[in-house]
């Protein structure tokens, strides 16, 4: 067992050209970005970035044009299941398999997600009706072998993705030097602020509680801390472009509610987890500029 249980499985995915273009979000995406910045020594919004840890989950975003292509979905599904040994967990946007022989009961999980289709994009969207799913019922996008879980807050996922070099070894021991695609910080922050706001709503009892949801406000901090100057500039441009986007507007309001000042709930939670005083001014300035809301 190497020091990182998840990297070989990422290498397995990146080894296949059909899968190499997927966008990796979630905690592991943050962890890879963090590692990349450390390797490059790049100057970031906040110099002391907390370490990033990730559990054995891949949140993988599929492009709409991929989901609209039944043949491409079939090939990708075949690679995941027949070549890489993943099994459908519950729905055909959730897959899992054993992490390895040493810990056969540990699972590495893949969730496939996607943004809401735009008008004119010819892809099926269906509301899921399973009773086990909480209301409001989610929707899935696509047809055939794979679906993507419709994620409203991922509206910018396909905009300006970031390529990060990775090196590692596949589960079969093959060394790889390749690139992984991560969401642009603008897209990443929107998703994480929405998740952090859900945590706040859970805390208030407005929605059903999910365990460990308090990781999301912390992730917002880490993402903001990792912003480079050029990324921040681009965030401002994207924020202006999406100024009138309904979901983007909601998320800006949510960011303000969570992180408006040092007494705001999101900020209190970040401080609680970090256990030390941190640079609120830099974070506040960065987040406002990145998402496009004024003081």
């Amino acid at each position, binding site marked *: *067992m*190497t*020091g*990182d*249980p*998840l*990297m070989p499985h990422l290498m397995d995915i990146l080894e296949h050209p059909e899968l190499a273009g997927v966008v990796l979000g979630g*905690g*592991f995406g943050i*962890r890879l970005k*963090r*590692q990349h910045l*450390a390797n490059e*020594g790049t100057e970031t919004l906040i110099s002391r970035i907390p*370490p*990033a*840890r*990730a*559990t*054995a989950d891949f949140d993988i975003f599929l492009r709409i044009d991929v989901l609209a292509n039944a043949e491409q979905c079939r090939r990708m599904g075949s690679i995941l299941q027949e070549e890489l040994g993943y099994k459908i967990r519950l729905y055909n946007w959730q897959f899992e398999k054993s*992490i*390895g022989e*040493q*810990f056969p*009961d*540990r699972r590495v999980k893949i969730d496939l997600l996607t943004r809401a289709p735009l008008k004119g994009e010819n892809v099926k969207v269906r509301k899921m009706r399973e009773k086990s799913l909480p209301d409001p019922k989610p929707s899935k996008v696509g047809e055939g072998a794979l679906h993507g879980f419709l994620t409203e807050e991922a509206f910018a996922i396909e905009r300006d993705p970031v390529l990060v070099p990775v090196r590692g070894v596949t589960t079969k021991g093959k060394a790889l030097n390749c690139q992984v695609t991560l969401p642009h910080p603008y897209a990443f922050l929107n998703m994480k602020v929405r998740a952090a706001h859900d945590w706040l709503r859970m805390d208030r009892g407005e929605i059903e509680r999910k*365990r*460990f*949801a*308090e*990781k999301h406000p*912390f992730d917002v901090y880490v993402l903001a801390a990792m912003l480079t100057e050029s990324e921040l500039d681009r965030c401002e441009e994207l924020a202006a472009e999406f100024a009138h986007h309904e979901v983007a507007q909601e998320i800006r309001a949510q960011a303000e509610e969570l992180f408006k000042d040092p007494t705001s709930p999101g900020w209190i939670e970040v401080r609680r*987890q970090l256990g030390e005083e941190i640079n609120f001014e830099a974070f506040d300035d960065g987040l406002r500029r990145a998402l496009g809301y004024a003081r």
Partner: protein
Amino acid sequence: MGQAFYEFPEILLFPGQETMVFQETDCILFLEMPQFPDQETPESRKPPPERDILERLMSEGLHLPELRLDLKAREIRSPSRTASADAELHIEWGSNKDIFIIECKSQNTPKVLEVAIAQAVRFGYEFKMRPMVVVPYLNEGSLDFLESHGVSGMDLCGNCLILGERFVIRRDGKPNRFTSSAPIKNVFKGTSSLFARCFLLKDRFVSHSELREFAISRAGNRTQGGLRQVEESSRFAKGTASKVVHALAEELIVVREGDGLRLVDPRRLIENLRQNYAPPGIHRIAVKTSLGEQGSLERLWDAHEEGTLRSVMTGLSSASYYGLLSTTEKPAFYVNDLTAALKLLEARPASAFSTLQLLETKSGVPFFDARQQGQMLIASPIQAWLEMSKAGPRERDAARELESDLANGRGAR
């Protein structure tokens, strides 16, 4: 909160300190918490002896609004003349009257409570009265336990469960005034916890001696004195092992079978270890060395083999080796001598661009049950789980898998 109506015998539980009383046709909600007892009981660290427990209840005046409590006879011989119950308590509410037969105990460990319940049930049958136990303190878990056996209970701290024929009263959340009557915590904390941890690695021992030898073998101290030094240490003294086993038996976590010892409730052991875990007193620094990460690991391993410096990867850093977490953090190691470690690694303190982190501790706890991983020692799965359980949300999420391994006897692998 307003009035609510419930089907009897529903018991509505509120967190904290509210009393709920229900009867078949009415529901009465007490918004103000009645004192029970209704005077401030003087703070006392030690619980009173058994003979004085009822005196405390009687002298402070049992009182609940709408309820009349009348402590009747004491030391009552059973009809069979084979035993005597501690007292008889009459409780009236409106037109309802119930008579309780009381068993008192001066301790409230799970084992003592179990015995008290059995005795109270027996007396209830013999005296044809409703059974009740009275102890210094009843926590929520104890009240649930009583309820599951259909036995009422009262304590000297203001908590109660009264199961009448046509009504139920439950009050919980009052704090324990008797700290010495609380479960013995130090067996789950610090060095004493190492014996308790042994039961997560091996669920039975043929004797106390075997337990002690197992603990010593997992301590793995390779100082110049070797294992003998460890054996002479009070950490693994025979008396300590005995005390820990006694406490675990009182908590019904371990049972004695002749000379043998067997773990029966791993989940409770795990929960107690988690609640009582505190990181060892440490001096922690980030350091930089020209040796690089790999070179540093090699030096630390060599020193371990020679017995000149103890080192083990922290639990959090070890998590990835248990298939749990992927991290960007520099590896962190416990060492028993920071000065020696800095010299060995040719390192200097450096918060920026550090190579690794060092945490100095004189406690043997983090080194217990360290596992070899190549040419490196990683933390015991128990240590890794404890550290992760007290860390951030992702770490606590990942800790659940390790906890499951430990609860199912897979900690030894």
